[in-house]
């Protein structure tokens, strides 16, 4: 190998080794996030899914309720039905788009709300301790001990089922995990020397919570928010399965899967409509997976001590 090659190699190494000038935490987070390929991929896919569900219906003329009686159980790529049709002649592609709106909305909204409530409760409980902590944590225990499904059934009977009710139920019964997680972490952060030293500097409690404690919990909060989002999307499916979730004809990824269960062993006509499960299942799968990729990348990016190789 020539000297020239080595020279180039050295230049390359030199180039890579050149220190990056980072002036603020935000810049550091962005730099690290950009270099986290999987997280970037996750973000792109999620944006893609969001566009697909939000803008997709604008480009097709068929509604999610429209039935094409001449095409029942048509396989994918039948004319006019790229993803095929179901037992009533609904277009699967259109239903996946509309269903995605609902599933993503339910997942996102309940993840955000549970995380907010849980974080707030956890911060107060962990930081102030004592009687505040005891009251809040006993309340969490009580909430955890209440079985969700009987209450759910009652609520649906009283208020009817709908998106808002599902979000309500998922948040009312979903924030406790986050609050326990945050509380535990705050308990240890509260005792760290940098919080002590912030106090010794004369920093107010409110500011200590906001500027010194909260930012240190955020990596964990983000991971649990992404897990919550996946959980909410799946929970909506199981609620729909029990007939308590989104009601047909309105589609959601969950209830599409649930209806497809009837044909999992094939139809009376002897065909196996695999497309009814594969398409909504695939979208649930890539959404949940990429939410987790994104969360993973965010957590690494938000921790200034974590600098991966290369």
């Amino acid at each position, binding site marked *: 190998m020539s000297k020239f090659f080595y020279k180039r190699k050295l230049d390359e190494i030199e180039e890579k080794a050149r220190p990056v000038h980072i002036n603020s935490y935000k810049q550091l987070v962005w730099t690290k996030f950009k270099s986290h390929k999987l997280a970037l991929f996750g973000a792109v896919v999620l944006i893609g899914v969001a566009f697909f569900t939000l803008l997709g219906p604008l480009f097709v003329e068929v509604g999610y309720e429209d039935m094409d009686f001449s095409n029942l159980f048509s396989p994918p790529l039948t004319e006019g039905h790229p993803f095929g049709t179901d037992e009533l002649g609904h277009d699967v592609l259109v239903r996946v788009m509309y269903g995605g709106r609902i599933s993503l909305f339910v997942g996102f909204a309940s993840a955000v709300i549970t995380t907010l409530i849980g974080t707030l409760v956890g911060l107060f409980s962990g930081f102030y301790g004592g009687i505040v902590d005891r009251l809040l944590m006993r309340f969490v225990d009580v909430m955890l001990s209440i079985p969700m499904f009987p209450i759910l059934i009652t609520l649906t009977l009283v208020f009817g089922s709908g998106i808002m009710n599902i979000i309500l139920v998922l948040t009312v019964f979903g924030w406790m995990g986050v609050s326990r997680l945050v509380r535990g972490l705050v308990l240890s952060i509260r005792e760290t*020397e940098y919080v002590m030293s912030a106090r010794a500097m004369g920093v107010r409690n409110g500011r200590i919570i906001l500027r010194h404690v909260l930012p240190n919990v955020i990596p964990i909060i983000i991971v649990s928010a992404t897990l919550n989002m996946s959980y909410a999307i799946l929970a909506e499916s199981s609620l729909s399965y029990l007939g308590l979730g989104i009601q047909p004809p309105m589609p959601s990824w969950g209830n599409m899967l649930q209806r497809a269960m009837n044909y999992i062993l094939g139809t009376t006509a002897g065909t196996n409509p695999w497309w009814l499960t594969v398409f909504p299942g695939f979208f649930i799968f890539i959404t949940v997976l990429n939410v987790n990729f994104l969360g993973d990348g965010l957590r690494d990016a938000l921790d200034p001590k974590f600098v991966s190789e290369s």
Partner: protein
Amino acid sequence: MERILEVDNLKISFRTQLGKITPVDGVSFGLSKGETLGIVGESGCGKTITAFSIIKLLPKNAFLGDKTKISFRGRDISTLSKEELQKIRGKSISMVFQEPMTSLNPLYTIGWQISEVYRLHEGLDEDDAMKRSIEMLRLVGIPEPQKRVKEFPHQLSGGMRQRVMIAMALACSPELLIADEPTTALDVTIQAQVLELMNELKSKFDTATIIITHDLGVIAEMCDRVVVMYAGQIVESGGVFDIFDKPVHPYTKGLISSIPKIDVAKKDQKKLNVINGYVPHPSNFPEGCRFRPRCPVAFEKCLQQPPVVQIERQHSVRCWLFEGGDVL
């Protein structure tokens, strides 16, 4: 000399599951402008909570005794409101903590953290606060401070971080600096540098300083006066030369003779002197003299509370051996 701090009859108790415990009982000392006081003793003898009590940073289950009076520049600390306290902390009284590794928030640049003090206490905007922070970093001997302000704590070494902590503590030129084991977590060479720096800055700002340590070397290097604590009480106090040259309390003697020395290869001394046993737990202080169970010269009288005896003008001791002297 102007009296900065007066701690009188400090008694700190905690409500715990084991009932009430009182790890600090009857500690009194004072401090004048520019003076350095060392508080020395083994781990668990109440040094740190004594320091915390001065700026009211004790845990919630702690409370002070009825006769306790802590006054800072003539004002009783216990009468101050929360807001007044927050104004004093970091501005008039500041602290340097033991662990430079964990005393800085890992999420913020060191520039941000120093300028927080300026924004808080002097109402400076971000740019001015940052400029002052750079000045302060230069003062504590950090090379290339303009570059360093943008770095995060984990990018600095232990010694550097302790310098940053000192810069933060001295940012508003406080009247009283409390350093809680400032060098314990550092290498010996770095220790020397940090001590030198503290000495330098102390004379520059004329700051009254309390140094809490179990390292007698640090005391010898830095302090004018020394208070030796054992099990929540002051057992001996005096000028730094009194304590090192003519220690009288058996505990002080024990401490001084248990310093390892390189040149002690004497034939008659093969082992390092140690004080046997441990500091008792506050729930379980012995009756009478608290050092009695470990004291090599204890006698019958030690079952009763020993008197505090003044030996010289500034040298006093809590021990039955000196009963003949002037009882304080």
